[in-house]
């Protein structure tokens, strides 16, 4: 069994208590809602993208600690980055959380986001960590709503809401 206690590291608990970039941007250029029907996590993400650059990003919503900390750390990680860099992080994060990528491997960009690697051993929590990234991906690609349902999560077939 995974040591789930290890997942609740101080950095995650801290971002849960004091989420960064929490709120809604007034005039966002991009926005999307994320929803995980399994546990009811909801996120609203707003971005200000200037040219190719993510100038500002904010999130708010109701979610568990893993999801909220992931959203908080994601906003901190992509703020000031290019869209392409954010997309690269999205793919790497997803692959790490689903166990297809070793976060310690060379040439990766995840850095502190590696604290979420532990969710790979908790199949029911993988989606909590990934939801903010799906929502970011959706917003950057002008999709209004993201859910974790279509995710190619190796441990989970799509789950209905009952």
């Amino acid at each position, binding site marked *: *069994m995974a*040591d*789930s*206690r290890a*997942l*609740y590291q101080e950095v995650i*608990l801290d971002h*849960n208590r004091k989420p960064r970039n929490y709120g809604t941007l007034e005039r966002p250029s991009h926005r999307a809602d994320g929803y995980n029907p*399994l*546990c*009811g*996590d*909801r996120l609203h993400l707003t971005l200000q993208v200037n040219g190719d650059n993510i100038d500002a990003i904010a999130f708010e919503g*109701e*979610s*568990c*600690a*893993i999801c909220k900390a992931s959203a908080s750390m994601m906003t901190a990680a992509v703020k000031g980055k290019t869209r392409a860099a954010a997309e690269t992080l999205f793919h790497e994060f997803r692959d790490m959380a689903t166990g297809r990528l070793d976060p310690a491997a060379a040439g990766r960009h995840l850095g502190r986001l590696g604290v979420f690697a532990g969710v790979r051993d*908790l199949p*029911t*929590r993988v989606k*909590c960590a990934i939801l903010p990234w799906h929502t970011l991906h959706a917003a950057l690609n002008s999709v209004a709503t993201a859910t974790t349902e279509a995710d190619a999560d190796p441990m989970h077939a799509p789950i209905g*809401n*009952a």
Partner: protein
Amino acid sequence: MIAQPAVLKKDAVPALDVERIRADFPILGLRLDGKPLVYLDNAASSQMPQPVIDRLVRYRTSQHANIHRAVHTLSETATREYEEARRKIARFINARADHEVIFTSGTTDGINLVAQTYGRRAVGKGDEIILTVLEHHSNIVPWQMLAEEKGARIRVVPVNDAGELLLDEYERLFTPRTRLVAVGHVSNALGTVNPVKLMIAGAHLRGVPVVVDGAQAAPHLKLDMQDLDCDFYAFSGHKMCGPTGIGVLYGKTALLEQMPPFKGGGDMILSVSFEKTVYAGLPNKFEAGTPPIAGAIGLGAAVDYLSGVGLEAIGAWEHELLEYATAQIRQLPGVRIIGTAARKAAVLSFVIDDVHPHDVGTLLNEAGVAVRTGHHCAQPAMERFKVPATTRASFAFYNTLAEADALVAGIREVQKVFL
């Protein structure tokens, strides 16, 4: 209005020897990561005692064949055992006749059966179906699908802050267009025991039949179909120490006879030609195809087991567990119990300040305590109490006071992590 029942008479019931009972359940001896399993997710699925496991093995190793077909010995044995299981269940729920017990795949299947057969004939455009805000999605969605198809309307009985149905409001929801009431006997999300007997009597005064979702009641309450006088009652095997994939729909003979079949296929017909097919009588009309034979026989063994322990004794012990755990959890600062009805099954739904139930569940699991977190397939009930989700500990008669202590200790640990 309907009067509330008086407080149930507390007769002396034989005490349960919990340790002896636990010895019947091999899985309860499991250790996960070195910690003993504390299984408090019984409302989702209960565990299976050795006599039921043994019965399934005996069937599979020495009695299996298809039923109602061949003349060979094994088929006759399997048919006899399958029908014997039906008889046991009919007695267990005090049905008037064995053929009032229809085997289904579970509660959901039973409710869909009623919606798609009785419901499609009885409900038309502008008609109304009464549900309650406490219902499990499986007692909401089949009726919504029917209402959408027919242009009918769903009316919803509200609850008070304790999670008790408002019976005055229930009475007011009836109109000349009311065609059906569907109500859960026990709320899976909050544990409320609904006064279904009174509600059935109220509906019958207006000539309206009642479907009861008994999934959460069958493992805990002594069921008596004739006393309840319900028209339909659905429940699942796996929540009452039986296997998954088997359930029961009880229906009154007169209603079942009027209803068209639900699924077409083998075993539900008397004769088939391309010109005309004649359907079989009860219960076969509703059991198309090869049924879950082992499941039915296993469920028969499960009701034997539950009857052996005694539903009164089960109810009394579970009540003690609930009272004990409730008192402990009430003392924890920052923890709020959702669902505080006067009559409750042993379900404890709660929220912890500033901690999402999903995180609670993951950390309790770390302590070996298995609970359910989420909306419990009862989103309208969650909405009513303005919580997105809860953590739910649900007890069975094989749980102990020490396990309630483990839950409470686990909650304290969770609070420490999130301090």
